[in-house]
């Protein structure tokens, strides 16, 4: 499972860093790492999965911004909230996943601005809110496809797709 998510994260980061060079509308590029983190939180409830979420954020930190650890903190937080939420819900279907992705992308974006802007965060949030909203929407629309791709890959390589609890 860890290797699968590591490869998926690598591919996600590859897309997120390469596509903006050809396609300048960054807001329309989904946050694939957050989608993978939500998938991890919804389906894998183990200490290793939490470590994986941290590693995914840390890998994002290596390719984004200049505050090392910020994305690691945000993805771990998103994983834990998703994990808690999914353990309390009776069903965690695609719709729940998509809504969670929408909220997670918003939280990660706003969290990033607050983290880096400090006192001037309110003004900066006003400037980027529309962009964040658009990215969260695009990510939520793409999320079911990513979930399906991950589930399909798990089936092909013989990993359980059902909820794993520790």
């Amino acid at each position: 499972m860890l290797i699968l998510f590591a490869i998926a994260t690598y591919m996600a980061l590859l897309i997120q860093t390469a596509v903006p060079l050809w396609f300048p509308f960054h807001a329309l590029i989904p946050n694939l790492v957050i989608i993978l983190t939500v998938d991890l939180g919804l389906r894998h409830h183990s200490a290793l999965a939490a470590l994986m979420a941290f590693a995914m954020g840390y890998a994002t930190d290596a390719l984004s911004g200049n505050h090392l650890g910020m994305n690691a903190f945000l993805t771990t937080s998103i994983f834990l909230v998703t994990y808690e939420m999914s353990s309390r819900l009776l069903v965690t279907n695609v719709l729940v996943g998509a809504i969670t992705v929408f909220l997670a992308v918003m939280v990660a974006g706003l969290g990033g601005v607050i983290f880096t802007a400090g006192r001037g965060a309110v003004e900066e949030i006003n400037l980027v809110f529309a962009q964040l909203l658009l990215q969260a929407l695009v990510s939520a629309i793409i999320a079911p496809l990513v979930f399906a791709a991950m589930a399909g890959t798990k089936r092909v390589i013989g990993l359980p797709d059902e909820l794993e609890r520790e």
Partner: protein
Amino acid sequence: MLLALNLVSIGVKPTDFAQRPVTVMMTAITPVQDTLNSFAHGSTGFVRNYFDLVNVRRDNERLKAQLAQTKSDQSRVVELETENRHLSDLLDLKDALGGGNAVGANVIGSDANGLAHTLMLGQGSSAGVMPGMAVLSFRGVVGKIIATSANASRVLLIDDHNAALDAFDQRTRTRGIVAGIVDDGLTMKYVDRSQEVRPSDVIVTSGLDGIFPRGLLVGTIKSVKGEGPGMFLNVAISPAVDFRSLEQVLIIKQMPESIDTQPKAKG
């Protein structure tokens, strides 16, 4: 049989009565034959036309492929010309900065999240690139290196909201701190209200931050607003460099004492 043998043996002439059924038969069959014949001719023509059309289509496809190839070659030539011009400009800039103190690099990636403004460059510590080094393009200041690996590095663009550099207005010599804003663009902070800066003034680096050499183009003033409370003017700057279309940059490994010629401000 006897009748047939009789007909054969008597030798029927064209005017004989026995010839009548032949005429009737011929008359009856002719229109149908004509129709069939014209249909056959038509079919042949259709088939011929079809094959001609196929040939025309083949020719068309071949010519289209040739045209596409020519267009591709043409765009490749234009691309090479542009790259050549960029590299030539960078080389001029490199010479102006003292030659060996700078290294050229290609932009190979963007920021993984849209909110931070960073780029990945194709030169790393193996080429002597270290964090804190200045990055320029032939149009002006780009940013500074924040992380390196053996063969790649990341540059924090000056329009990132965590970036700042010391600069001054070339006309009035007014100093300020140029910083990025989260949305896009630049702002010049700490410009006193008594200063007479105005739109279209050129902003250049002061060299006092120890990262960027003095006199490099940062941008031009877009607007100056003085309304509202506070001690300072709100100065918006339009960057000289289009950060979204950067392809090649120059990393300054060692800050030169002086610049021979100031980089030209182009388009």
